């Protein structure tokens, strides 16, 4: 694993879904790109163009039908489910459009969850720092369900960054937020990624947000166009 190895590399990746009608849906087709540590990559494209599918493959939640997805040199498709899970646990952070905070846990517990999952006790300090950084320390003991959308997404970002992931994946992180909140959340995300020197791959519909990336990819019916 050399230092200049890209964090994530897609090599001629395709993802096919068989349809109930008998046909095959090519959600992704011959997609190749890579992303190096410390870089930010934006993905745009219409609804149904395959953005989320791409992110799922990058996270090892799904495996490609053809081609290879490699994470720091390891071919995710060749790993077992358990190995992929461990990579996700230790090296990948996820931020979702719908936040996915557990409503019955407190804000702090939501942030701490990845630490619990990894049985890692060293995160407490870091978790508090992150919460402080996003300005939500005061809410730590509140149930997550009482927060506003923008606050929830900030908590979700803390959760994603808790274990210092090498790769942060965000699927329309501001898709459910108004403009003001979108800006706050996006700025935070960018700053935090810069601080941490991780790689960021994010999906967005906003030209403005896409412009903040080092590089942009555009998906059209599963095929990639570089801009």
């Amino acid at each position, binding site marked *: 694993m050399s230092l200049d190895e890209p964090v994530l590399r897609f090599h001629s990746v395709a993802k096919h879904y068989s349809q109930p009608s008998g046909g095959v849906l090519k959600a992704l087709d011959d997609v190749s790109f890579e992303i190096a540590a410390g870089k930010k990559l934006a993905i745009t494209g219409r609804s149904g163009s395959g953005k989320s599918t791409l992110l*799922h493959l990058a*996270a090892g*939640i*799904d495996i490609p039908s053809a081609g290879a997805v490699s994470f720091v040199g390891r071919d995710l498709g060749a790993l077992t*489910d*358990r190995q992929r*899970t*461990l*990579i*996700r*646990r*230790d090296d*990948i952070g*996820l931020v*979702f459009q*719908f936040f*996915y*905070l*557990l*409503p*019955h846990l407190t804000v702090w*517990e939501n942030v701490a*969850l*990845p630490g*619990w*999952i*990894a*049985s890692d*006790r060293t995160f407490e300090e870091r978790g508090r720092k992150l919460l402080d950084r996003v300005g939500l320390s005061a809410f730590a003991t509140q149930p997550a369900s009482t927060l506003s959308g923008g606050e929830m997404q900030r908590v979700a970002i803390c*959760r994603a960054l808790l274990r210092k992931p090498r790769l942060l994946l965000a699927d329309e992180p501001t898709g459910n937020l108004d403009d003001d909140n979108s800006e706050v959340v996006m700025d935070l995300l960018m700053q935090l990624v810069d601080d941490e020197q991780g790689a960021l791959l994010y999906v967005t519909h906003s030209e403005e947000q896409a412009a903040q990336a080092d590089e942009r990819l555009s998906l059209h019916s599963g095929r990639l166009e570089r801009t």
Partner: protein
Amino acid sequence: MIRYFFRALRAQLRGGVLLFALSLFGVSIGVASVVSIQIINLNALGAFRGSMLAVSGSADLILLGKMPTLPETLYPEVLATPGVAAAWPLYRVDVTLRDADPIVLEVIGVDFFTAIDVPWEGEAVDVSAALGQSGWVAVTATLARERGWSVGERLSVSIGTRTAELVVGALSDFEKATPLASPRLAVMDIAQAQSLLGSRGQVDQIDVKLVDGVDEAAVVAALDRKLGTKAMILTPEQREEQAADLLSAFRLNLTALSLISLFVGGFLVFSSTQAALVRRRTEFGLLRSLGATHRQVFGLLVGDVALLGLAGVAVGMPLGYLGARANIDRVSATLSNLYLLEEIHQLVVPPWFFVLGAAVGLAGAGLGALAPALELGRKDTRSLLAAFSLHARVGEKAPRWFAAGVLCVLAIVGVYAVAGDRWRPAGFVQAFLLICAIPLLTPWLVQLATSRLPVRSFGLAYGVKGLGRQLQTTPVAVAALAIAVSMVVGVTTMVSSFRDTLDIWIERTIQADIYVSTPSRRRAASHATIGADVIERLKRHPAVTHVDRLRQFFAYTNGRRFSLAGVDASVPVDRARFALLEGEVEELPRDSVLVGEPLARKEGLHVGDDLVVDGPDGPVSFPIAGIYYDYSSELGSAFLHLDTMTERFGGGTVASVALYLAPDSDADDVVDELRVAFQATPLSMRSNRGLRERAMQVFDQTFAITRLLRYMSLLIAVCGVALTLIVLARERTSELALYRALGASRLQIFRIYLGKGLGIGAAGIALGSVAGVAFALILIYVVNRAFFGWTIAMHWPLGLLVWQSAIVLLASSVASVYPAIIASRTPATELRREDL
């Protein structure tokens, strides 16, 4: 809407066959428990009723001897009473077949020239043979087929130490007259029956047919004047009621236990309806917003429940029947050992019974679904569409429910303070309150326990803590399990306390070295006597130092039948022969009586009171010198000195004897020697140890069905754990997908669900154990005393209870394996859904 119902049903079944199967299982096992117990209850008296109908079916009145027989000379007097159209005397004696398979024949001696009507198999029988041929007997065709007998077969039978040779002279078919009739009924001439098997000049019963239109009460009064205390005058219905009364406590208790199974089954329905409601709330909201009425949506849910109930009945009824059949032998043994009734020969299920079964199943399912359905009814369209949180609502109400539960507990104590064991239903009211208290107390306790639980990692504890956040489902499973556990703990404690008490009591009261009676003793009671010559021969055995004789018959006090025994205590024993509850006596007193606890409790008797017994020439009364612990039978008993008995009730023969041996002899060896010496005499001999073992065996047999019943509800409750966890795994797909996306391994998810199963199990055991202690107290101090009149010393079978708890815990973790597998298989891609 009907079309929508079936469309939706199909979709639901496809989605959750297992859920449906589990709730179906709960309902059907509940129904099966109730149905099988009711079938058994219904048939417990079947043989008795059958014999009565077969023999006295056409009688208007039945005159029964109290002493226990009647002098034959009363017969002409009865016949001469105005209003009596016909009467026929009966001599009944249960003889034992001297065979490798020694069954009991219920011999009825009849006078063939009276109005009695025997249903013959085939053409009418020439009854002159019945009088002429010695030992002529007619057996049922069914029994003849069973045993391979035909006309001319010689049967050797015994009654007491007497033996007789009978000859099958004809075949009868009582089943033609009444399907319940016992195949063991045998008919012979009354004079032959008296001389071969009993005593001349005595009859057991006189059946009376009245003149049409005559005033029954007037005839009864006239007969009563003539017979005095010698006989009881009953209508066939009263006779049957008398027997039913005898069994009422036994039957009621079994019914109550089986209802608990149904109750726990109802919880399963509750869980699954609740789950369906949570799952389908948006669907219902949408239907409402599309214009479906309240009633239509409610109807959808009711339709589901009705279907579940009916399916439960369809499975539960046959299962119940099979359950009843499988348990006939156990119950039969109890009936004949404890209540001296005939055994159950066949099960008859009347058509109305199916209606009852269906009603029970539907009611169980309906009650289970009631609360969730009402919940739905109260929801307006908007709140259905909005993702309302049932959990939060339960959480808010939990403290109030807890308070209600505490009130229930206080009410239990209150009932005890007011009614104690004097008011019979008190125990059931308390048990019911207890069972209501458990589900009321549970939610808040679960909330409290889980909120205190510190979570530091994503493992078992995380899973358990999660339970506190599923208040709409978890407490239901916990409560169902707790109820089942409380029943197991309560009944186990009661049974094993009873067993210990009995053991100590037997140790104390069985003091002779060898007990001798006859094979026909159990059933034929006072007819089965031991000849004086036999007793003389027993005395002559070199190892025998003393012989106690015991004469016993059923007597009546206040219309209550009880066993009156006369003993000649020839041996000065070092320890008191009776374990006394009240009074102080060293030896059996000469002129007073000792009364057993069940009889004393039922009749409200104490030391110093008089026991008034119906004697041959009117009531005889004895001062009560003591009340002894008595666990031999629920009927009640009393002891007199044998001489006093002879003085007051006339002479009679002895039914059993107790032998005391020289100190250096071995009881088992002596028994063996006596068996050889008395080979030709029908005697049954048990050494002290043998008798004790036999008593414990009878005890265990009696409670076998109870044991079975309590495990039924446990089984249902464990299914409830599985059901709840499956619902959790299904409903929480997004949550599980999120864990997977965050890097939780399958094993971790599996462990979390196992933790939930263990958590429910542990909570159920904890709550159930506490409630079980209360249950045991109610059973021992209230129900037992009120219904059976036994004092049971409390012994906590700790080892057994710990063992049972371990099994329950194991069962709940086993029940959580499958849900845990489902949960662990949730793919991270399921995170598409919005609801979390």
